[in-house]
């Protein structure tokens, strides 16, 4: 626990045991001890706060909050209470309350450096930049220390960065910040490197590059020492911006002489060189070429320079650097771009690249190095490309040709060369059927071939591939790439069960939950593994939530250590995670999942919605700033990189699907708000409370008026989605996985859910207009109900069949049946919520009608038929659900009865299988099949369970 003040204070002695209990996680004892202490010392506020911390940590958030507010209301000024409250508020995720706390404290003790500095940090935690600026200056006035002054300056910069209006940044915040620093410069009060860094940041943002250059090259610049080459790097950047090509060139040259392997300076050397040539720049006849020394301004000089660098590598005894060799290729590439014949002086690219391969081919990076320059081979010219690859292949030292006709590399260096040649050949489009046996390290290559086969949809290759990968994993149990590929194949086969272990063995950490979490969350729920799906969402959510708290702490540290340039970076990092597509997805899916699994089963829809503090009138997804943080290159591939178009399309598809899901969720939330309970219980958590405060501002519960626009959005989005899927996008096999969208549209679940969600509005209308005058409306409602059951029946029909289909002793997986089944269940959930809601609305109408009937002895035939129809539909729905449950049971038993060992592999007759595959291979393939079978069974069980529960709730539904 944080600082405990001075040891002399008797209160510290009294509080000590409570702190200790809290530190040891013994919250109950901490609460008891605090209560005991409070009996004796009623005014020992800190004890109250510590009790509140204990309560908070044992899940009693409401009590904790009330207690904390009691103490905060007294505006305490003792260290113990303030610090304890700070900790408590942080744990409650209410950092804004800390600012109130210290605002009161500095009001009461206006000269306290400590409280002022806590106030500044409290503002920093919530990003109140303007108040930070004032707090920083207030601090500086009390204690004139430089850091405080520059905290205030930095807060101005942050106001500039966060301002919506860029003009305001450039005309007000930044110039003000600049003047504040200039004042210190004039008074010669600049002390630290951080202060110069900040000055540079301000000038850079203002676009005052010339002034910035003056600072960096001047006396102040001498303070820039922590980072290596900090001054040089800054100068280079500024020369580029100012288009001072002579200085840029001279400095690049100087730095390359010092380090001939620093690639960025070759680039700036060439950039500046060609700019100088284009300007026909010539050096002055007398004096220095430039402020940075000698300038190169002709192609001949550049060629000479590169060749000198090469020559000094050639005579070196230590390992040669790659830089100069690659610089030669870069220069050729640039000369060719300009159509200059001078490139010939440097040599033939094919020959040079071949030599590079000879020199560096045993390094794994050889491929990535050369990839950049392959265009110099004129890839359309097949003969030249083939000749190149042939020469490469010949340069690989392989052993004698073995019995099977394959020559194998003798050591790892040769192996690496072999791999490099194969990769280059693949990248150039020359697919060599290089087969290798025995060497498991070559599995990369085999995989590529198998994957190639996969694209053509031959499923027997899929089983083989799974078998091979299982074998590979058995030999290299920590090979991440094999795990990823297995994971992908199992997912595509619809078998999620084995994926759970594979993913957890990848040991994904923090940011990886964001970058590769999609591999997990895309499939878990859609394949009917609800428990695993919840868990997968939780992993990600835990990371995202802790990020918000963590980053704030380090923003504060950056102020303390004067790492000003890191502050906007940390904030951008936090935003990047907060705006993550994956975050929005798991947030939405987690809540939907909870509703599917629970709402109207163990608790009412209303309670469920409340418990998750879902606020349907508020769209919590930052659509305009959504960040796609997925790592779509996580699979090894030597193909050309995933295209920008595919990335873009995938993001578009993901966003459409997310929009549909989020609208469904919010509509379900509205449905609960439409319910008939006038008084809501007090919200459970501070978070819920905040939402409740918000919703109170917007009017109490949701109204039909809230549903209407959401339904409109849902309809529009469905239209866009249909247009999108019409274009029929196919991503590369190792590219982004397609969303559930195409299938959701194809099996009709989206349309069915839309119809269902429209019903409550009509029923609401019926409620207002009364039963007597609404024949038309009633007929409409009846029709909608009717069409719902028809559509559901239709969906159920699309789930019929065996998940593992066996014909003629061959085995074929049909994962789409499983996915359809999950869509069916999800839709049933929505339909049942709606039905339950409608029956709740219709019930009082009906009873009032019956009363009337008693009086009047008239019968309204229409009304009777409507009620009857709704009731009838519920009965039919019940029949449908029983039918579905039975269907699933059948699928389960036929799956269980399946004897996989008796099967041959699809596409291959039994006898051939025996010949083709070794005993080992067959064992691995069998193991993979077993996993798929077991996973299907589990999915069927989970889906079946949920359907049975839903069927039970339907029974209790009567109108």
């Amino acid at each position, binding site marked *: 626990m944080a600082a405990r003040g001075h040891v002399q204070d008797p209160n510290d002695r009294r509080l000590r045991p409570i702190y200790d209990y809290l530190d040891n996680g013994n919250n109950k004892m901490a609460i008891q001890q605090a209560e005991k202490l409070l009996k004796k010392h009623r005014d020992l506020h800190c004890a109250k706060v510590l009790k509140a911390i204990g309560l908070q940590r044992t899940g009693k958030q409401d009590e904790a909050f009330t207690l904390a507010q009691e103490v905060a209301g007294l505006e305490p000024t003792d260290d113990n209470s303030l610090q304890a409250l700070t900790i408590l508020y942080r744990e409650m995720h209410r950092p804004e309350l800390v600012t109130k706390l210290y605002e009161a404290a500095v009001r009461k003790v206006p000269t306290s450096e400590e409280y002022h500095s806590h106030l500044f940090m409290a503002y920093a935690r919530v990003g109140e930049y303007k108040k930070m600026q004032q707090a920083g200056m207030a601090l500086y006035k009390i204690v004139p220390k430089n850091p405080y002054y520059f905290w205030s300056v930095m807060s101005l910069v942050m106001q500039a960065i966060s301002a919506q209006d860029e003009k305001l940044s450039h005309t007000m915040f930044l110039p003000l910040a600049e003047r504040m620093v200039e004042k210190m410069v004039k008074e010669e009060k600049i002390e630290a490197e951080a202060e110069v860094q900040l000055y540079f940041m301000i000038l850079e943002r203002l676009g005052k590059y010339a002034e910035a250059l003056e600072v960096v090259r001047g006396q102040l610049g001498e303070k820039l020492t922590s980072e*290596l080459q900090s001054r040089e790097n800054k100068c280079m950047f500024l020369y580029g911006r100012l288009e001072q090509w002579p200085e840029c060139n001279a400095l690049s040259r100087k730095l390359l002489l010092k380090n001939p392997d620093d690639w960025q300076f070759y680039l700036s050397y060439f950039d500046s060189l060609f700019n100088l040539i284009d300007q026909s720049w010539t050096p002055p006849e007398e004096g220095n070429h430039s402020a940075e020394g000698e300038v190169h301004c002709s192609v001949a000089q550049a060629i000479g320079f590169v060749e000198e660098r090469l020559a000094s590598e050639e005579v070196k005894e230590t390992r040669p650097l790659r830089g100069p060799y690659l610089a030669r290729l870069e220069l050729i590439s640039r000369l060719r771009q300009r159509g200059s014949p001078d490139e010939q002086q440097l040599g033939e690219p094919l020959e040079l690249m071949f030599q590079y391969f000879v020199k560096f081919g045993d390094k794994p990076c050889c491929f990535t190095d050369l990839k950049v320059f392959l265009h110099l081979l004129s890839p359309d010219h097949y003969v030249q490309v083939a000749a190149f690859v042939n020469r490469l292949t010949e340069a690989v030292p392989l052993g004698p040709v073995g019995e099977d006709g394959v020559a194998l590399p003798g050591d790892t260096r040769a192996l690496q060369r072999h791999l490099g040649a194969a990769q280059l050949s693949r990248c150039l489009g020359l697919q060599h059927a290089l087969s290798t046996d025995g060497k498991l390290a070559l599995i990369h290559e085999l995989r590529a071939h198998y994957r190639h086969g996969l694209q053509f949809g031959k499923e027997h290759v899929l089983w083989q591939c799974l078998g091979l990968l299982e074998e590979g994993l058995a030999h290299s149990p920590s090979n991440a790439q094999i795990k990823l590929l297995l994971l992908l194949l199992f997912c595509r086969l619809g078998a999620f069960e084995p994926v759970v272990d594979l993913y957890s063995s990848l040991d994904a950490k923090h940011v990886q939950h964001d970058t590769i979490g999609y591999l997990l969350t895309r499939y878990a729920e859609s394949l009917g593994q609800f428990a695993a799906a919840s868990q997968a969402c939780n992993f990600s959510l835990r990371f995202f939530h802790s990020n918000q708290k963590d980053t704030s702490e380090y923003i504060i*540290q950056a102020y303390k250590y004067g790492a000003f340039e890191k502050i906007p970076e940390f904030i951008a990092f936090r935003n990047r995670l907060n705006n993550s597509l994956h975050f929005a997805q798991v947030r939405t899916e987690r809540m939907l999942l909870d509703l599917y699994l629970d709402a109207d089963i163990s608790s009412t829809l209303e309670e469920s919605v409340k418990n998750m503090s879902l606020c349907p009138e508020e769209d919590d997804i930052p659509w305009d700033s959504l960040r796609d943080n997925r790592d779509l290159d996580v699979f090894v591939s030597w193909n050309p990189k995933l295209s920008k178009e595919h990335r873009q399309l995938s993001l578009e598809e993901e966003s459409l699907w997310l929009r549909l899901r989020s609208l469904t969720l919010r509509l379900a939330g509205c449905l609960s708000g439409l319910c008939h309970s006038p008084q809501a219980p007090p919200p459970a958590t501070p978070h819920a409370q905040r939402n409740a405060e918000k919703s109170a501002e917007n009017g109490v519960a949701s109204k039909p008026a809230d549903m209407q626009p959401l339904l409109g959005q849902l309809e529009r989005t469905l239209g866009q989605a249909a247009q999108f899927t019409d274009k029929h996008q196919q991503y590369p096999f190792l590219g982004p996985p397609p969303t559930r969208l195409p299938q959701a549209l194809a099996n009709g679940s989206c349309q069915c859910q839309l119809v269902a969600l429209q019903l409550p509005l009509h029923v609401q209308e019926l409620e207002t207009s009364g039963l007597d005058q609404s024949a038309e409306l009633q007929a409409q409602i009846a029709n909608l109900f009717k069409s719902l059951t028809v559509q559901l029946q239709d969906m159920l029909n699309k789930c019929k069949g065996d998940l593992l289909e066996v014909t003629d002793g061959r085995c074929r997986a049909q994962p789409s049946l499983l996915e359809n089944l999950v869509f069916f269940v999800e839709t049933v959930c929505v339909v049942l919520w709606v039905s339950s809601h409608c029956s709740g609305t219709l019930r009082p109408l009906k009873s009032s009608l019956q009363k009337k009937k008693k009086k009047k002895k008239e019968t309204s035939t229409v009304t009777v038929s409507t009620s009857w129809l709704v009731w009838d539909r519920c009965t039919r729905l019940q029949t449908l659900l029983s039918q579905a449950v039975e269907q699933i049971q059948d699928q389960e038993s036929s799956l269980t009865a399946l004897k996989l060992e008796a099967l041959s592999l699809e596409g291959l007759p039994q006898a051939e299988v025996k010949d083709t595959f070794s005993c080992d291979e067959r064992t691995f393939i069998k193991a993979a099949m077993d996993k798929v079978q077991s996973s299907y069974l589990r999915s069927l069980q989970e889906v079946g369970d949920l359907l049975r529960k839903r069927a039970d709730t339907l029974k209790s539904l009567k109108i």
Partner: protein
Amino acid sequence: MAYMTTLRGFNCDDLFKFNNMRLFPYPLALQYGIPFYLQYLAHWPEYFVVAEAPGGELMGYIMGKAEGSVAREEWHGHVTALSVAPEFRRLGLAAKLMEMLEEISERKGGFFVDLFVRVSNQVAVNMYKQLGYSVYRTVIEYYSASNGEPDEDAYDMRKALSRDTEKKSIIPLPHPVRPEDIE
């Protein structure tokens, strides 16, 4: 524009690029939690450097800090983490990153640079020896057990900087120490 072998300061966006599981089985690992990295970025940004390859792939990174008392001549640079992705090994990148960290520590007026390494990691120990480091002391059970493996000792390896003219800082201790005895 892509850089071939470019050293630059680590930034938060780099955290998103750590799925470098290419070519070889073992990914360039992010062994610590986010707060740990942010702490280093906030406190010692100059000591946190990445090497970048074409297409922006991370080749490797080094992370360190400056600590210790100047008065007791223990002010020094410390290597917290050094990692090079498998496909960029054997290029001398680790040496380059270490050299850089030493240079920064020189400028800060450090007396030496030190690092901890598992006693069993012979490859790393040899590499550091080649770079001029020597074992200063053994720290008993410095690495706690995980994944069923027992606790392991660490070597505390040091290299003197120019400020330590007599190379006093690297005279090996005769006895091993316990983790609680080191600062």
